[in-house]
């Protein structure tokens, strides 16, 4: 689908002794790629998603998706008339139908109905062939979510909404599903809104990021930009870090390393089996970046990059500071964030504008 999503919602409710909850959001979401809606629990992520789906009615709402109005002051398109797919947090498969029956439920109602090859492709992509004749009760949590994702795809959506589809699964099951979600991104030209409170999921999957807190939008933009911001009230602690999109330049079989280029520089990373030329995503945690005033070769740290200090900000931990660094190449540049002790910053006299060497202790290829 071409065209962005313009969403404006206001709603409030009062609950018991609590102060209640209010959502007040006005956002434009790109009409392509995966947009993660991120925030702590209670920040209104799911409510926003439900408003977009039409499962919940905002007191005041305005929603345009790809040029079509789904909701405004006078109109409210009911959920079943909105061309979207929805994957719920826990499996929402119909218990009285087999996996196949659940998929057929979607196919029969899809407008336009998916072609047979398309249905077979979705079944293959989600690895469902051996599961089709089982009932939901006979499937594992991960398998159920795969069926639920396939079912949402088979209704021919123009927009896919996913509400923490991994939240109800344990770590092993999450790892089992993740590749299927990555296939979803590469295999379908379908905008996806993905609600999550896990930085790991966001770092692996998202292209864009919306950050919500207490029902308000606090940041939105391309993933790397938003993650590189230091002023977010987003307290990620040990998870603070950036993602960089890169490309594999060469693979060193002897040392098991891969040379990866990103905007502004190169990194040697553990080879994750990606072929040369392949686009990958690298996540660098702030705690894995240290600074030196000179380039030392007498260190075990492989990646040393010339950088300039851009800005500094307080960390949630008062002993620590966050420092944003710009790594500039000839034409392009990228930012990384380092998490340092105040004492080191003071000792090295680190300040905005200063040239330093960023030592990247480790970085992970996340896709």
């Amino acid at each position, binding site marked *: 689908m071409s065209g962005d999503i313009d969403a404006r919602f206001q709603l409030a409710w009062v609950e018991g002794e609590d102060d209640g909850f209010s959502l007040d959001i006005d956002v434009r979401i790109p009409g392509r790629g995966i947009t993660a809606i991120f925030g702590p629990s209670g920040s209104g992520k799911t409510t926003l998603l439900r408003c977009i789906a039409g499962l919940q009615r905002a007191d005041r709402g305005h929603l345009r998706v790809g040029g079509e109005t789904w909701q405004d002051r006078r109109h409210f398109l009911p959920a079943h008339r909105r061309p979207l797919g929805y994957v719920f947090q826990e499996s929402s498969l*119909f218990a009285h139908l087999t996996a196949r029956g659940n998929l057929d439920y979607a196919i029969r109602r899809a407008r336009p109905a998916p072609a047979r090859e398309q249905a077979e492709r979705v079944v293959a992509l989600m690895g469902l062939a051996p599961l089709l004749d089982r009932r939901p009760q006979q499937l594992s949590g991960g398998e159920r979510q795969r069926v639920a994702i396939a079912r*949402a795809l088979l209704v021919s959506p123009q927009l896919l909404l996913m509400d923490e589809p991994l939240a109800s699964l344990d770590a092993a099951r999450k790892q089992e599903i993740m590749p299927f979600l990555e296939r979803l991104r590469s295999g379908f030209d379908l905008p996806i809104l993905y609600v999550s409170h896990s930085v790991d999921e966001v770092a692996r999957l998202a292209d864009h990021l919306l950050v919500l807190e207490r029902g308000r939008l606090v940041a939105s933009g391309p993933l790397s930009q938003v993650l590189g911001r230091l002023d977010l009230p987003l307290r990620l602690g040990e998870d603070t870090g950036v993602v960089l999109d890169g490309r594999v330049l060469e693979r060193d079989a002897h040392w098991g390393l891969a040379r990866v280029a990103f905007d502004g520089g190169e990194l040697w990373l553990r080879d994750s089996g990606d072929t040369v030329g392949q686009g990958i995503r690298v996540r660098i945690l702030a705690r894995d970046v240290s600074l030196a005033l000179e380039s030392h070769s007498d260190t075990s740290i492989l990646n040393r990059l010339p950088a300039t200090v851009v800005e500094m900000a307080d960390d949630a931990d008062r002993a620590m500071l966050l420092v944003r660094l710009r790594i500039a190449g000839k034409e392009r540049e990228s930012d990384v964030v380092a998490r340092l002790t105040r004492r080191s910053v003071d000792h090295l006299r680190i300040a905005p504008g200063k040239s330093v060497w960023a030592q990247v202790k480790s970085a992970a290829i996340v896709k």
Partner: protein
Amino acid sequence: MGFSEADWQAIWLTLRLASTVTVLLLLIGTPIAWWLATTVSRWKGPLAALVALPLVLPPSVLGFYLLLLMGPSGPVGKLTGALGLGTLPFTFWGLVIASIFYSMPFVVQPIQNAMESMGRRPLEAAATLRAGPWDRFFTVVLPLSKPGFVSAAILGFAHTVGEFGVILMIGGNIPGETRVVSVQIYDYVENTEYARAHWLAGSMLLFSFAVLLSVHLFRQRDARSAIGVLGR
């Protein structure tokens, strides 16, 4: 000794009555149960209480009011009279109508419980799969509430078979028309024909036990849905 011809007539009448009432109650009770399960209206409480009344009301009270309503000078009686249907008391259809009220909670409550235990999630999932309200009702609500319907049918049938007070009030004791098994037993006891009463009473005992046992077994098999009046 076995059953006399009059006994067989009473048994046949009882089964005919219970089947008719069960079918009609499933048709009437389903929308009522659905409304009670989903509404946020302030009328939910009053309607739920009205449906549940026969659980606590003496059958003679219910029968008395129905008799007044359906009698020749009652509003319903006048209407049926004007329509050329005669009056309903002391007829089979009078019994059917009275039994519908009397057995209503035994049908509505299991269905309502099953619908409530289903939760909103399957309906929301169906809505995101392009299913409209009627589509959702027939393809999601009804199949997922099936255990409730089975319980409702068994309990509604059994409860109608076991009716006595309302029938006596409204139907009297007309062989082949309103003399059901429970009334037949009453007659035998009145006339001290205990041996005949034993045959029918014993059969009713076995029947009722078998019904409750089957509900229990069915529920065990389908433990996922918390349903039924008896379980509350």
